[in-house]
Protein backbone atom coordinates (compact mmCIF):
# COMPACT_ATOMS: atom_id res chain seq x y z
CA UNK A 1 0.00 0.00 0.00
CA UNK A 2 1.18 3.52 -0.82
CA UNK A 3 2.05 5.65 2.15
CA UNK A 4 3.82 8.82 3.21
CA UNK A 5 3.20 10.77 0.08
CA UNK A 6 4.50 14.26 0.57
CA UNK A 7 4.41 17.16 -1.82
CA UNK A 8 6.23 19.94 -0.05
CA UNK A 9 8.09 21.70 -1.53
CA UNK A 10 6.03 21.59 -4.71
CA UNK A 11 9.00 20.75 -6.95
CA UNK A 12 9.57 17.48 -5.09
CA UNK A 13 7.62 14.38 -4.19
CA UNK A 14 8.51 11.26 -2.26
CA UNK A 15 6.62 8.03 -1.87
CA UNK A 16 7.32 4.66 -0.29
CA UNK A 17 5.48 1.60 -1.58
CA UNK A 18 5.53 -2.15 -1.06
CA UNK A 19 6.84 -4.68 -3.54
CA UNK A 20 3.79 -6.09 -5.31
CA UNK A 21 2.46 -5.10 -8.73
CA UNK A 22 -0.67 -3.72 -7.04
CA UNK A 23 1.56 -1.51 -4.85
CA UNK A 24 3.16 -0.21 -8.04
CA UNK A 25 -0.24 0.53 -9.55
CA UNK A 26 -1.38 2.45 -6.45
CA UNK A 27 1.93 4.29 -6.14
CA UNK A 28 1.81 5.36 -9.79
CA UNK A 29 -1.71 6.70 -9.33
CA UNK A 30 -0.55 8.74 -6.33
CA UNK A 31 2.52 10.10 -8.10
CA UNK A 32 0.62 10.98 -11.25
CA UNK A 33 -1.74 13.06 -9.09
CA UNK A 34 1.10 15.00 -7.40
CA UNK A 35 1.53 18.77 -7.88
CA UNK A 36 5.03 18.11 -9.24
CA UNK A 37 3.64 16.62 -12.46
CA UNK A 38 0.84 19.16 -12.84
CA UNK A 39 1.26 21.33 -15.88
CA UNK A 40 3.38 18.82 -17.80
CA UNK A 41 2.32 18.22 -21.40
CA UNK A 42 0.23 15.13 -22.13
CA UNK A 43 3.23 13.65 -23.95
CA UNK A 44 5.53 14.23 -20.98
CA UNK A 45 2.97 12.79 -18.58
CA UNK A 46 2.59 9.60 -20.59
CA UNK A 47 6.38 9.24 -20.88
CA UNK A 48 6.70 9.74 -17.13
CA UNK A 49 4.08 7.10 -16.36
CA UNK A 50 5.56 4.56 -18.79
CA UNK A 51 9.16 4.94 -17.58
CA UNK A 52 8.20 4.94 -13.93
CA UNK A 53 5.95 1.91 -14.33
CA UNK A 54 8.68 -0.07 -16.12
CA UNK A 55 11.33 0.86 -13.56
CA UNK A 56 9.10 -0.06 -10.62
CA UNK A 57 7.86 -3.27 -12.25
CA UNK A 58 11.49 -4.31 -12.66
CA UNK A 59 12.19 -3.76 -8.97
CA UNK A 60 9.18 -5.90 -8.03
CA UNK A 61 9.95 -8.59 -10.59
CA UNK A 62 13.72 -8.87 -10.17
CA UNK A 63 15.11 -7.08 -7.09
CA UNK A 64 12.29 -8.39 -4.91
CA UNK A 65 11.92 -11.71 -6.75
CA UNK A 66 12.79 -13.72 -3.63
CA UNK A 67 11.65 -11.54 -0.74
CA UNK A 68 9.43 -8.53 -0.15
CA UNK A 69 10.53 -5.04 0.80
CA UNK A 70 10.02 -1.33 0.33
CA UNK A 71 10.59 0.84 -2.71
CA UNK A 72 11.23 4.55 -2.28
CA UNK A 73 10.59 6.90 -5.16
CA UNK A 74 11.69 10.50 -5.15
CA UNK A 75 10.87 13.03 -7.84
CA UNK A 76 12.53 16.37 -8.33
CA UNK A 77 11.73 18.93 -10.93
CA UNK A 78 14.64 20.89 -12.41
CA UNK A 79 14.38 23.58 -15.02
CA UNK A 80 14.49 21.12 -17.91
CA UNK A 81 14.09 17.65 -16.38
CA UNK A 82 11.99 15.59 -14.07
CA UNK A 83 14.51 13.51 -12.08
CA UNK A 84 13.60 10.17 -10.55
CA UNK A 85 15.48 8.43 -7.75
CA UNK A 86 14.39 4.88 -6.97
CA UNK A 87 15.75 3.07 -3.94
CA UNK A 88 15.19 -0.54 -2.91
CA UNK A 89 16.77 -3.17 -0.69
CA UNK A 90 16.35 -6.06 -3.10
CA UNK A 91 18.83 -8.18 -5.02
CA UNK A 92 21.48 -6.28 -7.00
CA UNK A 93 21.24 -6.01 -10.77
CA UNK A 94 23.17 -8.78 -12.55
CA UNK A 95 26.67 -7.56 -13.48
CA UNK A 96 25.95 -4.44 -11.38
CA UNK A 97 24.52 -2.82 -14.48
CA UNK A 98 21.05 -2.08 -15.85
CA UNK A 99 20.21 -4.16 -18.94
CA UNK A 100 21.06 -2.63 -22.31
CA UNK A 101 17.45 -2.75 -23.46
CA UNK A 102 17.91 -3.71 -27.08
CA UNK A 103 14.98 -2.98 -29.37
CA UNK A 104 12.57 -5.93 -29.60
CA UNK A 105 13.11 -8.02 -32.73
CA UNK A 106 9.95 -7.74 -34.78
CA UNK A 107 10.45 -10.77 -36.97
CA UNK A 108 8.29 -13.69 -38.01
CA UNK A 109 4.93 -14.31 -36.41
CA UNK A 110 6.00 -17.25 -34.23
CA UNK A 111 9.04 -15.43 -32.89
CA UNK A 112 7.30 -12.24 -31.87
CA UNK A 113 8.60 -11.22 -28.45
CA UNK A 114 6.18 -11.31 -25.51
CA UNK A 115 8.60 -9.61 -23.17
CA UNK A 116 11.84 -7.73 -22.93
CA UNK A 117 10.23 -4.41 -23.80
CA UNK A 118 10.71 -2.88 -20.37
CA UNK A 119 14.33 -1.76 -20.45
CA UNK A 120 14.03 -0.79 -24.08
CA UNK A 121 11.22 1.62 -23.14
CA UNK A 122 13.16 2.98 -20.16
CA UNK A 123 16.33 3.51 -22.21
CA UNK A 124 14.36 5.09 -25.07
CA UNK A 125 12.26 7.46 -22.99
CA UNK A 126 14.67 8.50 -20.22
CA UNK A 127 17.99 10.32 -20.05
CA UNK A 128 21.06 10.34 -17.78
CA UNK A 129 20.30 6.90 -16.35
CA UNK A 130 22.57 5.76 -13.54
CA UNK A 131 22.62 2.72 -11.27
CA UNK A 132 24.77 1.90 -8.30
CA UNK A 133 24.76 -0.55 -5.44
CA UNK A 134 25.47 0.98 -2.05
CA UNK A 135 25.63 -1.57 0.75
CA UNK A 136 22.30 -3.40 0.53
CA UNK A 137 20.67 -0.62 -1.50
CA UNK A 138 19.93 -0.41 -5.22
CA UNK A 139 19.98 3.20 -6.36
CA UNK A 140 18.56 3.95 -9.79
CA UNK A 141 18.14 7.44 -11.16
CA UNK A 142 17.05 8.82 -14.51
CA UNK A 143 15.41 11.87 -16.01
CA UNK A 144 12.55 12.69 -18.30
CA UNK A 145 13.15 15.79 -20.38
CA UNK A 146 10.45 18.41 -20.01
CA UNK A 147 9.29 19.67 -23.36
CA UNK A 148 7.49 22.64 -21.87
CA UNK A 149 10.04 23.74 -19.29
CA UNK A 150 8.44 26.61 -17.40
Amino acid at each position, binding site marked *: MAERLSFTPPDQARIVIGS*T*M*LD*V*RAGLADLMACPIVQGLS*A*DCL*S*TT*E*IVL*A*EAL*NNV*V*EHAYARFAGEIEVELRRDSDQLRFHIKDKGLPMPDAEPPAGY*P*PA*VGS*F*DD*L*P*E*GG*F*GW*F*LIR*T*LSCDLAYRREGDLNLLSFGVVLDNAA
Partner: protein
Amino acid sequence: MNLDTTHEGEIILIRVMDDRIDAASAIQFKERMREIVAVPSLRVVLDMSNVGFLDSSGLGAVVAVMKALGPLRRLELSGLTPTVEKVFRLTRMDSVFTIHKTLPADLRRAG
Protein backbone atom coordinates in the same frame (compact mmCIF):
# COMPACT_ATOMS: atom_id res chain seq x y z
CA MET B 1 -10.02 -7.82 -15.55
CA ASN B 2 -13.38 -6.88 -16.95
CA LEU B 3 -13.88 -7.80 -20.61
CA ASP B 4 -17.17 -7.33 -22.42
CA THR B 5 -17.70 -9.80 -25.28
CA THR B 6 -20.09 -9.50 -28.23
CA HIS B 7 -20.44 -12.04 -31.02
CA GLU B 8 -21.32 -10.21 -34.22
CA GLY B 9 -21.55 -12.54 -37.19
CA GLU B 10 -18.08 -13.93 -37.82
CA ILE B 11 -16.47 -11.44 -35.48
CA ILE B 12 -15.79 -11.59 -31.77
CA LEU B 13 -15.69 -8.06 -30.41
CA ILE B 14 -14.05 -7.71 -27.01
CA ARG B 15 -14.23 -4.44 -25.12
CA VAL B 16 -11.71 -3.92 -22.34
CA MET B 17 -13.67 -2.26 -19.55
CA ASP B 18 -10.66 -1.72 -17.23
CA ASP B 19 -8.70 1.49 -17.65
CA ARG B 20 -5.31 -0.23 -17.64
CA ILE B 21 -3.58 -3.44 -18.71
CA ASP B 22 -0.50 -3.52 -16.51
CA ALA B 23 1.77 -5.95 -14.71
CA ALA B 24 -0.89 -6.42 -12.02
CA SER B 25 -3.54 -7.53 -14.52
CA ALA B 26 -1.64 -8.86 -17.57
CA ILE B 27 -1.86 -12.55 -16.66
CA GLN B 28 -5.57 -12.32 -15.93
CA PHE B 29 -6.13 -10.45 -19.19
CA LYS B 30 -4.29 -13.17 -21.11
CA GLU B 31 -6.25 -15.98 -19.46
CA ARG B 32 -9.65 -14.34 -19.95
CA MET B 33 -8.83 -13.57 -23.58
CA ARG B 34 -7.79 -17.15 -24.25
CA GLU B 35 -11.14 -18.38 -22.88
CA ILE B 36 -13.06 -15.92 -25.02
CA VAL B 37 -11.25 -16.67 -28.29
CA ALA B 38 -11.60 -20.43 -27.77
CA VAL B 39 -14.91 -19.90 -29.59
CA PRO B 40 -14.17 -20.00 -33.34
CA SER B 41 -14.57 -16.80 -35.38
CA LEU B 42 -13.06 -15.31 -38.50
CA ARG B 43 -11.92 -12.14 -36.80
CA VAL B 44 -11.18 -10.99 -33.27
CA VAL B 45 -11.41 -7.27 -32.58
CA LEU B 46 -10.16 -5.83 -29.29
CA ASP B 47 -11.63 -2.43 -28.43
CA MET B 48 -9.06 -0.66 -26.22
CA SER B 49 -10.66 2.77 -26.14
CA ASN B 50 -11.17 2.57 -22.35
CA VAL B 51 -7.53 1.65 -21.72
CA GLY B 52 -5.57 4.74 -20.77
CA PHE B 53 -2.40 2.90 -19.80
CA LEU B 54 -0.57 -0.23 -20.91
CA ASP B 55 2.90 -1.24 -19.73
CA SER B 56 5.34 -3.74 -21.21
CA SER B 57 3.65 -6.64 -19.41
CA GLY B 58 0.32 -5.57 -20.89
CA LEU B 59 1.90 -5.32 -24.32
CA GLY B 60 3.41 -8.79 -23.91
CA ALA B 61 -0.02 -10.15 -22.99
CA VAL B 62 -1.64 -8.65 -26.10
CA VAL B 63 1.14 -10.14 -28.26
CA ALA B 64 0.69 -13.52 -26.55
CA VAL B 65 -3.04 -13.49 -27.29
CA MET B 66 -2.36 -12.71 -30.95
CA LYS B 67 0.12 -15.59 -31.18
CA ALA B 68 -2.39 -17.91 -29.53
CA LEU B 69 -4.86 -17.09 -32.30
CA GLY B 70 -2.45 -18.43 -34.92
CA PRO B 71 -1.38 -16.79 -38.16
CA LEU B 72 -4.76 -17.06 -39.93
CA ARG B 73 -6.88 -15.36 -37.32
CA ARG B 74 -5.30 -12.01 -36.60
CA LEU B 75 -6.04 -9.89 -33.57
CA GLU B 76 -7.30 -6.47 -34.63
CA LEU B 77 -6.98 -3.55 -32.23
CA SER B 78 -9.21 -0.52 -32.07
CA GLY B 79 -9.22 2.82 -30.29
CA LEU B 80 -5.68 3.06 -28.93
CA THR B 81 -5.40 5.99 -26.52
CA PRO B 82 -2.26 8.17 -26.79
CA THR B 83 -0.17 6.41 -24.11
CA VAL B 84 -1.07 2.96 -25.40
CA GLU B 85 -0.33 4.06 -28.96
CA LYS B 86 3.07 5.34 -27.84
CA VAL B 87 4.04 1.97 -26.33
CA PHE B 88 2.99 0.13 -29.52
CA ARG B 89 4.83 2.63 -31.73
CA LEU B 90 8.11 2.69 -29.78
CA THR B 91 8.32 -1.10 -29.66
CA ARG B 92 7.30 -1.28 -33.34
CA MET B 93 4.45 -3.60 -32.41
CA ASP B 94 2.16 -1.21 -34.29
CA SER B 95 3.54 -2.85 -37.45
CA VAL B 96 2.42 -6.29 -36.32
CA PHE B 97 -1.25 -5.63 -35.59
CA THR B 98 -4.12 -4.34 -37.69
CA ILE B 99 -5.00 -1.16 -35.84
CA HIS B 100 -8.29 0.70 -36.35
CA LYS B 101 -8.55 4.31 -35.20
CA THR B 102 -12.13 3.66 -34.17
CA LEU B 103 -14.32 0.58 -34.29
CA PRO B 104 -14.83 -0.74 -37.85
CA ALA B 105 -18.18 0.48 -39.22
CA ASP B 106 -19.75 -2.98 -39.19
CA LEU B 107 -19.16 -3.21 -35.44
CA ARG B 108 -20.17 0.23 -34.29
CA ARG B 109 -23.63 -0.77 -33.22
CA ALA B 110 -22.53 -4.05 -31.69
CA GLY B 111 -23.05 -4.53 -28.00
